[in-house]
């Protein structure tokens, strides 16, 4: 239960970086010298998921020091890597505990580990087992053979949903700053209602990009995240436009609303590439090179349009 509360807090970014388990060798159930060894990271959420997936089994768990970062991100940064693995094998005295020389690794740890170098340096052979910890029992029952489903990346609605809270928290500070500036600007230029409207529109655009874009990811058209996010922003603007009686607005304000919301929403959905399981850095770089200037121009233009509308 306390693990659930802890996981929930970590999802919202509360004490996330202190959410760790000491590295070393752990026993799940009552493992023997012949029992298999599974390697994981010392992010407490990874460790808890692995442990609960393995309930009822007898397995050694070798937890690497990744400073509280999950396997995938730690492998990308190198802390879940060959050096740490070889060192942890030595420090934990693994070769005295088990009689075999085999390690089961999460497939998503592979970007950090060179299996052939681990074998050379430690004598342990590495088998990349599954992507998800939940598939480990089935992998064991399957005679330690990986099926296609076990090695296929999924990115379900739920997978995306649990990533959103921490993204919201990350977006909170810059959004609050912008909203305050917009509110004051609107207040000075057009009174309380204008100030409220501007801040609401900006907050809504951020929400569209952080929540709607990622959740509707497979259904939003195109491959580009910036485009998907811009469309999520437009989807959000429509009801807003109707509720706020947009028909009565002037053309400059209307164009400014749609430009701002799609640019801001597009930016935040593009930011979600950092959380996905299929976007390549080359792709993100290409998108940013194209999209960031367009977004900046859209915001600038919106500001000018609002000024024009104000003076007209």
């Amino acid at each position: 239960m306390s693990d659930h509360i802890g996981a929930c807090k970590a999802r919202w970014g509360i004490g996330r970086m202190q959410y760790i388990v000491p590295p070393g060798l752990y026993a799940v159930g009552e493992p023997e010298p012949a029992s298999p060894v599974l390697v994981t990271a010392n992010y407490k959420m990874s460790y808890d998921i692995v442990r609960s997936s393995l309930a009822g089994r007898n397995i050694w768990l070798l937890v690497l020091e990744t400073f509280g970062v999950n396997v995938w991100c730690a492998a990308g940064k190198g802390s879940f890597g060959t050096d740490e693995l070889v060192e942890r094998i030595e420090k934990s005295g693994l070769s005295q505990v088990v009689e075999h020389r085999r390690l089961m690794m999460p497939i998503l740890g592979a970007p950090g580990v060179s299996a052939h170098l681990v074998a050379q340096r430690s004598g342990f052979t590495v088998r990349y087992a599954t992507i998800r910890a939940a598939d480990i029992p089935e992998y064991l029952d399957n005679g330690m053979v990986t099926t296609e489903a076990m090695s296929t990346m999924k990115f379900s609605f739920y997978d995306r949903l649990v990533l959103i809270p921490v993204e919201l928290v990350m977006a909170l500070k810059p959004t609050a700053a912008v909203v305050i500036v917009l509110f004051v600007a609107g207040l000075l230029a057009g009174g309380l209602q204008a100030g409220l409207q501007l801040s609401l529109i900006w907050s809504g655009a951020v929400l569209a990009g952080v929540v709607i874009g990622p959740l509707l990811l497979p259904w939003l058209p195109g491959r580009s995240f910036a485009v998907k996010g811009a469309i999520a922003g437009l989807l959000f603007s429509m009801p807003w436009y109707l509720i706020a009686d947009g028909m009565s607005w002037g053309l400059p304000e209307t164009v400014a609303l749609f430009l701002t919301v799609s640019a801001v929403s597009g930016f935040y959905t593009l930011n979600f590439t950092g959380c996905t399981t299929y976007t390549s850095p080359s792709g993100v770089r290409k998108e940013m090179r194209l999209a960031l200037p367009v977004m900046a121009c859209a915001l600038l233009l919106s500001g000018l349009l609002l000024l024009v509308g104000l003076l007209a």
Partner: protein
Amino acid sequence: MSVEEKLMKNFRYLKDVATIELNQSACVGCGRCLEVCPHHVFLLQGTKAVITDRDACMECGACQKNCPVNAIIVDAGVGCASGMINRWLQEHKLKKAGDGCCCS
């Protein structure tokens, strides 16, 4: 195929951007790249690996890191937009180093 799996087929990122290259003459056909690739970019044809789905590559670098004969080259990295912006800001001295992003 479940609904989720069908949707996963829709999870395709931009075309023709992945930098992955496989030097087939060096390949020893050990199959390690097939084992580590989470997007099934490779197939084994006879005693050689081939790239059959380049656009599915997310440049994680797992294949390069685990190829025992260094037959694979990919410009690997973490595809994180805020990370890239942070790095850019740091390089241009607009922000101090160490301000983390999502998974730092």
